[in-house]
């Protein structure tokens, strides 16, 4: 059946379409080329006066894995005020900072998102993470597997193993964990924390293995590049949240020597030590470095004011932060020496100097990075704020006067330390479409997502333009997922199942021999149980795998 979406104003940056009136055709879940006779369409939806974009993609949102469940269990008081009743087509749950799986899918879809990616999946916990994400309806999912503090890799580095062997290990782990990309969190630091180190700077040696974060970063970045993984190494750098970490971040950018790198929640890594309070914005220097280095992309991890929960693999940083927990409780975990996690509830306050400046730093980075193809819109859900705050964030980026009004309510000392008030840039709809659709899809290698060209998946969002951009983006008129109308007027109308995106880089299976010996000696599971089969994702009747081919290295 052919469906015609006629007359909408289309923003499709991947195909260079900037606010042009176009007809979009859908057939069998894909975008179809225009037929010779438009009247042959069985369904015609008149979208004149509406804005049409591809479904939005969140490249960094914590929606699956042990830490999210811990966060849910830790905060019953956060769920209480936000119950999600069942309807005839949707299931019940709870919302706010760490929503239940079903509510996560509904609320993302109701905002026009059609794909979301969990950025911190422990290899040993991949099965649970995928099972949990399988429970999230409507949206497509995928995950980045965490390496860099795992015992096996650190042993390889300490023993001086070759890059080729490390590439094989990385490729094996991506395949076994059914991942789409690789993330490194506080390289080596999570492991060093377990050896009683409380910080690990870029060139500081791990007390036990004798390797440095710089070595780990460079080796993994090279592995990801040589294996042809489309998304660059996803880096949560050293010294998250520490004043002065801007120097570490700049050294990280320089140290990667031109290899592609994605620096995630960069806002938390852009702090200087100027001023009376020894806490200042490093946004201008970071943005300058990003602008000068085309191999670098970033997502911001914007904070928003209010209660949230921080859930991170960086147990070293979370240990540091736990004194600021609100409410006063936290959890720190380790799994199989693979890595770990820390969960710390947090309330960001606009009248608190540090929080106010963090808010301003995030926005400064958004506005100072020139190329929207290399800066993605995230709050590092739920660490900076729940993903439901995205429409508010979009308004802050698109509406300077609104931004300045908000800025004027901040702690006065934070206002003095920020240049935000002088930044006049306002994002256009085209740029928003880039940073929320086209750029994440391109970065992740999702060739049929994030655009509206013929052959793409028919993931489409339709908005009514409104001067209040928050109002516009929080309630789309229509959302199509794989050609099915799933949201109308901001409400779920149909529940479908999204797919899981994964990658299969080639590798020499000889690595499995040493891995098998390692597992038999040290791990609580066998290598064959560590591997997640396709059937485990597909066989519950809701899962579907989309296997991507790597970029030619």
């Amino acid at each position, binding site marked *: 059946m052919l469906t015609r979406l006629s007359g909408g104003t289309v923003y499709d940056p991947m195909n260079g379409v900037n606010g042009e009136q176009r007809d979009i055709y859908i057939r069998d879940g894909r975008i179809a080329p225009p037929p010779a006779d438009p009247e042959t369409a069985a369904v015609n939806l008149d979208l004149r006066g509406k804005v049409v974009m591809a479904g939005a993609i969140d490249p960094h949102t914590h929606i699956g894995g042990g830490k999210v469940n811990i966060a849910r269990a830790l*905060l019953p008081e956060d769920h209480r005020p936000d119950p999600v*009743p069942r309807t005839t087509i949707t299931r019940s749950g709870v919302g706010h900072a760490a929503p239940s799986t079903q509510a996560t899918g509904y609320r993302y879809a109701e905002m026009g998102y059609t794909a979301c990616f969990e950025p911190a999946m422990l290899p040993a916990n991949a099965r649970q993470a995928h099972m949990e994400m399988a429970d999230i309806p409507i949206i497509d999912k995928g995950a980045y597997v965490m390496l860099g503090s795992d015992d096996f890799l650190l042993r390889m580095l300490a023993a001086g193993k070759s890059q080729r062997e490390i590439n094989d290990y990385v490729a094996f782990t991506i395949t076994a964990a059914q991942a789409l990309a690789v993330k490194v969190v506080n390289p080596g630091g999570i492991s060093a924390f377990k050896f009683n180190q409380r910080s690990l700077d870029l060139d500081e040696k791990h007390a036990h293995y004798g390797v440095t974060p710089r070595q780990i970063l460079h080796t993994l970045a090279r592995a990801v590049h040589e294996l042809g993984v489309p998304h660059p190494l996803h880096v949560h750098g050293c010294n998250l949240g520490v004043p002065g970490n801007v120097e570490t971040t700049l050294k990280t950018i320089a140290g990667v020597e031109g290899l592609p790198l994605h620096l995630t929640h960069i806002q938390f890594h852009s702090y200087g030590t100027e001023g009376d309070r020894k806490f200042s914005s490093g946004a201008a220097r970071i943005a300058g470095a990003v602008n000068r280095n085309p191999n670098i992309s970033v997502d911001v991890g914007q904070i928003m004011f209010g209660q949230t929960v921080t859930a991170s693999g960086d147990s070293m940083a979370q240990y540091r932060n736990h004194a600021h927990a609100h409410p006063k*409780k936290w959890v720190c975990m380790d799994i199989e020496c693979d890595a770990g996690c820390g969960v710390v509830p947090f309330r960001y306050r606009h009248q608190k100097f540090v929080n106010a400046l963090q808010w301003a730093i995030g926005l400064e980075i958004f506005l100072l990075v020139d190329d929207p193809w290399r800066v993605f819109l995230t709050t590092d859900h739920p660490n900076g704020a729940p993903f439901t705050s995205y429409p508010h964030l979009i308004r802050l980026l698109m509406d300077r006067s609104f931004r300045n009004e908000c800025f004027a309510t901040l702690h006065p000392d934070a206002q003095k330390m920020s240049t935000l008030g002088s930044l006049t840039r306002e994002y256009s709809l085209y740029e928003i479409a880039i940073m929320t659709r086209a750029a994440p899809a391109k970065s992740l290698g999702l060739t049929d997502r994030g655009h509206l060209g013929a052959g793409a998946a028919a993931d489409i969002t339709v908005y009514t333009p409104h001067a209040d951009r928050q109002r516009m983006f929080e309630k789309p008129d229509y959302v199509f997922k794989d050609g099915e109308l799933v949201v109308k007027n901001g409400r779920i109308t149909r529940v479908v199942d999204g797919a899981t995106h994964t990658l299969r880089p080639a590798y020499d299976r000889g690595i499995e021999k040493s891995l098998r010996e390692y597992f038999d000696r040290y791990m609580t599971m066998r290598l064959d149980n560590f591997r997640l089969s396709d059937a485990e994702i597909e066989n519950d009747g809701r899962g579907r795998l989309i296997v991507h081919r790597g970029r030619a290295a």
Partner: protein
Amino acid sequence: MSLTLALRVAPQVPMEAEALTFDRVADLSESDIAALPLLHGNEKAAVGDFFKVSGRANGEVHLEGDLGRVKYLGAGMSRGRLVIHGNAGMHLGSAMIGGEILVKGNAGDWVGPEMLGGRIIITGNAGHMVGSAHRGGTIGMRGGEIIIHGNAGNETGNGMRNGLIAIGGNSGDFTGVNMRAGTIMALGGLGWRSGAGMVRGSIVSMQPAELLPTFSYDCDYRPVYLRLYLLYLRELGMAVEDAWIEGEYRRYSGDSVELNRGEILLLNRQKLS
């Protein structure tokens, strides 16, 4: 005529009724009250689906019927009086700030969890976790009074920080577990391991109790504040014997794992005349 909500359809599954507080209904018309949202199981419902609403609030709101499956009655209430003619469900007066809730029947678990002020009176029995912290939380009730004429279940006053819990009958195991401060008066007996992990505060009972080995005997004495409390409870209609007011109490300090700053007072029955 005061405002009355009479249960006309019994809920089939537990129902969450945070709308049924004095604050929410006091200034509304009957039809507006009937339209207030409830959560029946996991489905949205309205007050009018289950209750017949009549009258207007004149300082009091009356709820009639067996509300044993209705949770969060009076949650967050800050003023006025809520009178429940029948049983009340779990989480009665959760995080309540002020006003008074009177239950002419029994109440479920979690009476007044994390309440900040006001008074809850239950003429019958209450379940477990009276005045406690929510699971995952560390601080229980921070103020106000919970008066239970009957018995209470386990973990009464878990993590409580201030206020008064008075129980006319027995209190279950772990009474005052992890309490930070405040007073628990169990006029009947105390269950096992009362005061485990208590930091400060007082637990009082008129019956002998088997205490943890981390509590140590201090002295026998007649604390003045206890007389005032008992007279106050008598004023509230609790059966307080003269001998308790005049009597001597054995003081035990503990929990020694938390530096012995709390106390358990047990009526010295040997010295009763």
